[in-house]
């Protein structure tokens, strides 16, 4: 019994199906709790008024947008190094969710920026590099759709993903490296957070919601991808659910 046996699509498929609903429920519960804290308990910000409540989705979505890319790059490296099918499928399953998270981060950022900074958009380093992240996700999805042979598409997408990973530290450090309109981090791994603890709590609970949601959606999507690509094989034909269909 080893964890490595789950690197086979046939072994991972039922596990993903078992786990996905639990992550979906965890996401829903965290979202309800986070929204309750964020709107019901957290007080009005003395500088930004109620507009600051946008950060409860903006920051989790922005974190997810970068983190999903890092995970995608990790699976791409594994896929290239060991030529394993499931790792490439995992990378494939993460790209659309990463794109959605990036879109949400950009959209909510614009709607927060207008009342707070006086503009929806500026070509500053943080926003521009986050926009490039969105285009990278689009590029990975488009590249896969352009290549008919899935195994060749795996390799091409893996290379593009790994090269594009250079953008992630640029996004992360952009507020330090350049003089940006976007403010520096209020919450970082190395220093005490510079925000009220109840606001921080709402943001962290929403971050867990974003995590669980992304995992749930990626698991359902990777199951679809496994079926799309492994159909015709004996184990897929033997799935009880398909024989009933």
């Amino acid at each position, binding site marked *: 019994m080893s964890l490595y046996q789950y690197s086979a699509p046939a072994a991972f498929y039922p596990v993903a199906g078992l786990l996905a609903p639990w992550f979906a429920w965890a996401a829903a519960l965290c979202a309800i709790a986070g929204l309750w804290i964020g*709107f019901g308990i957290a007080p009005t910000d003395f500088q930004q008024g109620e507009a600051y409540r*946008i950060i409860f989705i903006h920051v989790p979505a922005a974190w997810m947008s970068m983190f999903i890319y890092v995970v995608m790059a990790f699976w791409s490296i594994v896929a290239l190094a060991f030529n394993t099918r499931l790792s490439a499928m995992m990378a494939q399953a993460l790209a659309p969710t990463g794109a959605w998270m990036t879109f949400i981060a950009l*959209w*909510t950022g614009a709607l927060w920026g207008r009342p707070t900074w006086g503009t929806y958009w500026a070509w500053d380093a943080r926003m521009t590099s986050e926009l490039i992240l969105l285009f990278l996700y689009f590029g990975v999805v488009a590249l896969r759709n352009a290549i008919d042979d899935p195994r060749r598409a795996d390799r091409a997408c893996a290379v593009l993903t790994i090269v594009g990973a250079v953008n992630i530290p640029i996004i992360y450090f952009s507020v330090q490296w350049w003089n940006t309109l976007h403010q520096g981090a209020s919450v970082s791994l190395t220093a005490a957070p510079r925000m009220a603890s109840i606001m921080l709590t709402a943001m962290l609970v929403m971050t867990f919601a974003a995590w669980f949601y992304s995992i749930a959606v990626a698991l359902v*999507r990777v199951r679809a991808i496994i079926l799309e690509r492994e159909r015709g*094989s*004996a184990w897929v*034909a033997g799935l009880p*659910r398909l024989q009933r269909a």
Partner: protein
Amino acid sequence: MEFLAMGGYGFYVWGAYGVAALAIVVEAWSVRARARAAEKLAAATPSEDRGR
């Protein structure tokens, strides 16, 4: 009503939360549809045809 007004920032707050919620609903719905389509496709594919 006061809650919906968000101290004058209602358009920005609900515009942000509304579109984010819509994005999540659309993604969740489309991934579900893809999973169902994949099951149908797999069920319709004969076992000896090793198409990927």
